[in-house]
């Protein structure tokens, strides 16, 4: 099969499967909202302090939601043998992996990205800063999905997989978090954000180039 049709075939499959798991996906979405809403209770309703922590809170909530959703990427396919079928099919596993990661991001994280400006305004962020934040999330969350896919693949079938995955990849998330929030805060203060976006885009390019390779190697190891 040609690369594009493999990619699209897997993507379509993921969408069809996700239609049967709508509740699961909606749960992740509401998790994001609940986590973000938790902080005003912790910090107090003063809009000034909320504005100070807002970018960080929304970013961390999105990050944790992305983390929570990771088990959906490979786990069920691993258990029912579909992943092995992908490996045996003769199609390049890297292509399948990229498609799965992209589908995963579209289904579980893109809704969060779309909703984020409204959550941002709840934290007193200006409209401009909220949209900047949404843009940082748009570029940054795929990086999180790519990095997360490595962790998810490494812990396939391992006990305490979810907590272990978190331990493995949260350190790797830190640079994305730094520049995602950094860009938002810069926008809030009326400063230039082009630097932050450049670095985030660089992260995206690098992770897009390297993570699928690591992830498919990890999948092969898990299937041995």
């Amino acid at each position, binding site marked *: 099969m040609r690369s594009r049709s493999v990619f699209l075939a897997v993507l379509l499959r993921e969408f069809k499967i996700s239609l049967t798991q709508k509740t699961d996906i909606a749960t992740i979405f509401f998790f994001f909202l609940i986590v973000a809403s938790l902080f005003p209770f912790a910090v107090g309703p003063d809009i000034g302090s909320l504005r100070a922590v807002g970018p960080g809170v929304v970013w961390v909530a999105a990050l944790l939601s992305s983390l929570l959703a990771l088990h959906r990427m490979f786990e069920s396919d691993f258990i029912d043998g579909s992943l092995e079928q992908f490996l045996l099919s003769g199609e390049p596993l890297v292509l399948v992996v990229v498609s799965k990661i992209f589908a995963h991001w579209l289904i579980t994280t893109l809704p969060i990205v779309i909703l984020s400006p409204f959550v941002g305004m709840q934290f007193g962020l200006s409209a401009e800063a909220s949209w900047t934040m949404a843009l940082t999330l748009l570029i940054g969350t795929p990086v999180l999905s790519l990095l997360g896919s490595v962790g998810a693949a*490494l812990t396939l079938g391992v006990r305490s997989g979810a907590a*272990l995955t978190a331990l*493995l990849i*949260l*350190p790797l998330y830190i*640079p994305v978090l730094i520049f995602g929030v*950094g860009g938002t805060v810069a926008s809030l203060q009326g400063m230039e954000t082009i630097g932050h976006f450049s670095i985030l885009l660089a*992260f995206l390019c690098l992770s897009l180039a390297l993570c699928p390779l690591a992830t498919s190697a990890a999948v092969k*190891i898990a299937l*041995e």
Partner: protein
Amino acid sequence: MICSQTLQLLHFMRFWKYSTPQNFYPAAKKIAAVFFVLAICFGIPGLYVGFFVAPTDHQQGEAYRIIFIHVPAAWMSMFIYVVMAFWAAVGLILNTRLSSMLAQALAPTGALMTFLALWTGAFWGRPTWGTWWVWDARLTSELVLLFLYVGFMALRASIEDPRRADKASAILAIVGVVNVPIIYFSVKWWNTLHQGASVSLTKAPSMASDMLLGMLLMALSFWMYSIAVSMLRVRKIIRDRERNSGWLNN
């Protein structure tokens, strides 16, 4: 040209013979003994210079003497991670058991060095900066490095098949080693943004040559110690993983 000549030399030295656990096992004991001795040979002069030669610092008084542990530990924590990732990668690519065992042996020592760097960093920060912890770029990066080590060891521990554990942790180590510079520079940028022009905690002001000498001697001592202790640990790992092989029962 040079590569093939090096390979020929190694073959002549019967270097490749040591690439099996069985042959490396006795050699590791001898290496450990030699390097423990070397660690002491560098450590005693290092401590002497650190406490009896290096003068009192104008700004930090005697508190700066922590540097003779803090900097060597920090250097070793980073160095061991790279070496660990190297051997893990070799084990993954060449499918050699011993290389992966060596990576497995290095991790706890690397984690210990990271812990010591953090502990001594906190004990240095308290008298000089007033708080036990500062989100200084180096200390924060050390903290992240500790997480990377712990992640490596946790992944190994949760996979039952040792060969799968070898390969999976190798991928993690490789991903980690690529990320360490990225994490370091991101944290450094984040730190300068929020703290402005504050002096780095870990910079000893105006390094007198005696201070530098003490630091280098202690760094060498820590290096020799790390090798020695890793050799002992790889022996333990070999005993553990090869216990069903006949040769071990002799």
